[in-house]
């Protein structure tokens, strides 16, 4: 483990930024968001960014290819280019875990080269949580907020920033800032972890039960009567989907610029009424079906296909952002019998 004093943190950032693009949460007047670091920017102390860190690998829109059409002829232009290395600093445990989930989707065969390209060039530097919010429930999914994953894990104490590499990429990162950091023991970190864990236990959602959900539970929940009431006030907007670090549904669309056609990929939301609309019809016609799809996917379908791992990381963004305050916690409680016990 290595550390540097918070006073010299800027020097570390400067070093990193000189090397490759460095992104980190920076406070704005409307909360924290990831930003390319420039001298003068300060690492936000906010728990979570407005938008999740998935944008780095799965941006809201990205051009896939271009076409030139003339008469009856079509030319396909591969517009991909190899990305440059970049560092994402200050990723919280929940978001860090979300990358694993996105990986299972995008890196599984056939591998998505756009995603893979970005993923390979990124170094993820995570930051342990110390002041969780009442909306946090990552522990429910087995995530340790005090020891997030990623290539490098950091802990920020009152005076210092601690670094620990988790893999080769991480080691290379530590190596890069070796001059600016010093080797240290993990005592302060452990103290902080213990303290945070105490708080984590007190979280109102700490004892949310997941046992009833998971692998192969489709039949149990699919026709549950609760879906009707749960979905009744859902507006069908995409807020939960778009702030969610693990939602990865997309649409591929073409845009005719007048002098060529760009085929691009953009986020899509399974909550949208048009989501599954195709030439032959719409697979999920009612908001109930769409609402069910989103939560069944996180709680049942995804675990079924991925050894029981849930498709939610408990970051709490949807709890904070849903216009009508409907969210996965309420769904789990209503379906899982947590409610009113």
């Amino acid at each position, binding site marked *: 483990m290595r550390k540097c004093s918070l006073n010299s943190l800027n020097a570390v950032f400067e070093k990193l930024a000189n090397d490759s693009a460095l992104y980190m949460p920076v406070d704005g007047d*409307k909360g924290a*968001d990831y930003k390319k670091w420039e001298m003068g920017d300060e690492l936000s102390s906010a*728990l979570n960014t407005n938008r999740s860190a998935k944008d780095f690998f799965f941006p809201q829109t990205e051009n896939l290819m271009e076409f030139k059409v003339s008469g009856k002829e079509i030319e396909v232009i591969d517009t991909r280019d190899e990305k440059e290395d970049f560092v994402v600093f200050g990723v919280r445990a929940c978001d860090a875990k979300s990358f694993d989930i996105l990986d299972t989707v995008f890196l599984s065969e056939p591998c998505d080269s756009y995603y893979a390209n970005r993923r390979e060039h990124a170094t993820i530097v995570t930051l342990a949580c110390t002041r969780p919010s009442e909306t946090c429930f990552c522990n429910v999914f087995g995530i340790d907020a005090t020891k997030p994953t990623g290539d490098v894990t950091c802990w920020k104490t009152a005076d210092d920033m601690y670094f620990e590499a988790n893999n080769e990429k991480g080691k290379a990162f530590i190596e890069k800032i070796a001059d600016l950091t010093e080797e240290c023991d993990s005592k302060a970190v452990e103290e902080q972890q213990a303290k945070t864990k105490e708080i984590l236990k007190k979280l109102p959602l700490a004892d949310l039960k997941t046992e009833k959900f998971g692998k192969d539970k489709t039949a149990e929940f699919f026709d549950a009567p609760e879906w009707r009431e749960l979905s*009744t006030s859902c507006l069908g*907007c995409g807020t939960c989907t778009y702030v969610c670090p693990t939602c990865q549904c997309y649409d591929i669309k073409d845009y005719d610029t007048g002098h060529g056609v760009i085929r691009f990929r*953009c986020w899509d939301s399974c909550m949208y009424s048009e989501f599954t609309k195709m030439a032959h019809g719409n697979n999920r016609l009612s908001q109930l079906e769409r609402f069910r799809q989103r939560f069944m996917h996180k709680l049942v379908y995804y675990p079924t296909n991925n050894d029981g791992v849930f498709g939610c990381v408990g970051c709490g963004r949807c709890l904070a952002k849903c216009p009508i*305050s409907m969210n996965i916690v309420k769904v789990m409680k209503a379906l899982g019998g947590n409610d009113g016990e």
Partner: protein
Amino acid sequence: MQKITCESLIEKACELIENGTVSRVIGWKKGEFDYDLTPAVFANADEIKKNFIYNDFSGANFSKYLIKETRKGEGKVLVFLKPCDTYSFNQLLTEHRFDREKVYAVGIPCEGMADIAKVKAAVGDGILKITSEGDELIVENLYGDVNKVKLADVLAERCVNCKSKKHTAYDELMGEDGEILDNNRFDEVEKLENMTEDERFAFWQNELSRCIRCNACRDVCPACTCEKCVFDNPKSGVENKAIADSFEEKMFHIIRAFHVAGRCTDCGECSRVCPQNIPLHLLNRKFIKDINTFYGEYQAGEVEGSRAPLVNYTEEDIEPNDAVKREE
């Protein structure tokens, strides 16, 4: 004025559902915390007693739910309307969006609703419990602190600039009715107007560039009730799902604001729900302000059946070229 209590609403709802006046009640349902209430439809008194809640966070405007709810089955729907909600209610009626006969509207007075983001900004995150005491909220957090904050300091933006305490529609009123208020809701618009063109552009570029096109503003808006939105319709020429260019941010918000111009009741839901905290109400309010300046005072939803300014005209209307300030 006596603050309306949750109990009195529950009592009223139960009474109306039990005496058969209504068959369903649209109300706020308890959440995980004290502030995350969910709009819900209650079908019986037991449910109401168990889960109905009304507190300083009962901000959600239910008017729009009436479209869907009145299309379902038999019986009337009970809806509780705060003064600002009645404007949306009226506007929807003006546009024939639901059957008035199928609704029983109970007007409830409102002293302003709290904005949880402001509460958190004031007392920090990790909130376990919020209780109301007089004009203060008492907030307990994870870390054992108990903080007090004045409700007046954490009011939602629309409540700070409340335009009216007067109910413009109801079947029954609980408590006393208020008056249309003088307010400063156009101050921020004016501030922007007084900036230079470049400053305004920079301001909006910065705000709108954060848009993630989640459609929350549209989907919550009581004026955006189109059976099919132009942004979902491939034939409209503006359909898009995601913002692939900064132009599309502007396109979406200009067109949306234009479509609700003269119909927007300034209920503030768009800004409330925006996950990116874009001050969308400033767009709609600009239109309201312009309409007031150009065509005389008009507030959508104040009078049922009133003719919206954009479907009206006089022979002496301002010329578009003059509508834009030519000095600077």
